Each structure stands twice: as C-alpha cells, then as structure tokens.
C-alpha cells in the first residue's frame, strides 16, 4: 500500500542549531565575529592582512581560514602574530557552523575581541550557511565586473557591509562604479559600502574605523542589556 509521510523537515536546522550555539559562545566570551565572503582571488586574505595591521594594537584578533585545501592562508595570517586556524573543507564550497564550532576550542576566546572567518572563496554557497557571526561582509573586486552584484544577489542582500577591493586597478578594469553602488543600494539599502585597495592601502582606514565602531557598539549594547 502506498503511504504518505508529511515531514516539513528543515534541512538547514542542523546548521542553524550549531550557528546559534556559536553565536551564544561569541556573545558570552565577548568575541565580535565577522564572516568574510567573496569569490576566490578577490583579496579576502590581503584585505584581512591590512585590517590586522590596523587594528592589532587595539584589539586581540583571531582568524579562521576556510579553504578547500592547503593551509597557505593561515600561514600568511600567522606571520602577523595573530592566532590563525585553517579549516580544509575537502571539496565543500562553504564553511558550515559545525566546522566552525569544531575549531573554537583552539582559541583563547575570552581574550579575543575580533574573530574573522574567511569563508571558502565562492559567491554562491556560503550565503546559505549562517556561522553564528555578528556581521556578514561581502567583498567584490574591480577585476570581477560590477554585474556580479546582480548575478549573485543573495550574498550582497545578506551582507551587513560591502567592500570593493582593488580600486588601485580602476583605471585598467573599466569597472562601473556607479552601477556597482546603485545595485548594492537597490538590493541592500542599509549596507555601507567601503571602496578600498589592499595594495595601496587606500580606504582601509575607513573600513577598519567602521569595524572598530561596530565592535564597540556591540560590546556596549551587551553592557546595557539588562535582561
């Protein structure tokens, strides 16, 4: 006899549960966490290195590096005397909350003010997996073309802040800045945009100032949380 079993089962629930646990941990330990998403080669690690240089003196920073293979990026970050842990996803195109949960014990979280999670280079898959972060950062570079915002809208819609890297190359790439700004505003009117270059350092200060202020307001919000 044919049988029908209604399930209404949320397949993302496992990830959501781990993400909530991570978020609680970050909250309890006062660790402000960002999830950095872009396609491969946009400059996530380069921007991160510049960010570390700028903020290292005022914040304790930890980094989780996600890549399909190798620990090259963690090695790049470790050179800046920052604790970096590499996760290899062995083929998976994104980090999930369980993978992140698995490495948190390797950090002295109590001492870490800012945790940066560099996701696997990909503009599609990471968007669907909450890691428990406070802030989603979407990064695009001027060599990719401004149309990638509308071609990969989910990442830009969900971002709390959008970075445009490699503005030193603007004269050569024909990147349409106006289209980029308009499309980001259209998809996500609240997200601030920072245009910067990890190579020249231009714009890095404005971005790190925003990051520092977000961290401060997060910490203060917690101090005033009476519940």
């Amino acid at each position, binding site marked *: 006899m044919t049988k029908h*079993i209604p399930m209404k089962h949320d*397949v993302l629930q496992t990830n959501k549960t781990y993400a909530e646990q991570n978020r609680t941990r970050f909250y309890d330990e006062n660790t402000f966490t960002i999830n950095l998403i872009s396609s491969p080669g946009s400059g996530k690690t380069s921007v991160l290195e510049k960010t570390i240089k700028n903020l290292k003196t005022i914040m304790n920073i930890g980094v989780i590096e996600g890549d399909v293979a190798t620990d090259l990026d963690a090695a790049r970050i470790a050179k800046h005397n920052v604790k970096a842990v590499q996760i290899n996803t062995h083929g998976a195109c994104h980090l999930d909350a369980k993978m992140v949960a698995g490495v948190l014990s390797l950090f002295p979280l109590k001492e870490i003010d800012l945790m940066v999670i560099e996701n696997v280079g990909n503009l599609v898959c990471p968007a669907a997996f909450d890691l428990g972060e406070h802030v989603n950062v979407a990064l695009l570079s001027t060599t990719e073309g401004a149309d990638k915002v509308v071609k990969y809208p989910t990442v830009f819609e969900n971002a709390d802040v959008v970075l445009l890297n490699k503005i030193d190359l603007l004269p050569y790439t024909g990147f349409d800045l106006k289209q980029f700004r308009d499309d980001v505003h259209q998809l996500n009117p609240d997200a601030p945009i920072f245009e910067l270059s990890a190579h020249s350092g231009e714009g890095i200060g404005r971005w790190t100032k925003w990051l520092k202020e977000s961290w401060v307001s997060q910490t203060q919000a917690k101090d005033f949380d009476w519940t």
Partner: protein
Amino acid sequence: MHEVSLIYEVLLHVEQASRQGGMNKVTIIKLTIGEQMMVMPEALQFAFDTLRKGPAAEAELKWEIIEGIYFYIDYIEGEESSD
C-alpha cells in the same frame, strides 16, 4: 556544490522518517527550496543520483521553488512494509 551536503542531510532524515513510519521503499521525496539558496536543479539531481542509498535508493526526487532561503523536506511517499 553545496547541493551535495544538502542531499546528504536529506537522505539521513528520509531514512530515519521512513524507518519510523514503517516504509520499506521510498518512491517520492518532495522538497521545497528557496530561490535564494542558489541551488542548481541539475547539481541537486546529480548529488542525489550519486548518494542515493538505503530505502530511498530508487526514489524520485521532486522539488518546488519558492521565494527566500529555505530548504525543506515536504513529504515522502512509498510502500508500506508488509511485515
């Protein structure tokens, strides 16, 4: 590419539900997928064809696309165990 991890989870839950529901052969698995999940139907079918096993080994995968970030297993259909 995240289709593989999603299908893996689907198969785990389908196997569990079919066992609990006394179904020895699953014929249909129906999913509801949010458009913003950016799931590729071909990749989903491919992942399913690669990973299918157990009571769902011969099931047909069906899905409906809706707005948003969702990935639900709606229902399963199949043959009831005779014992």
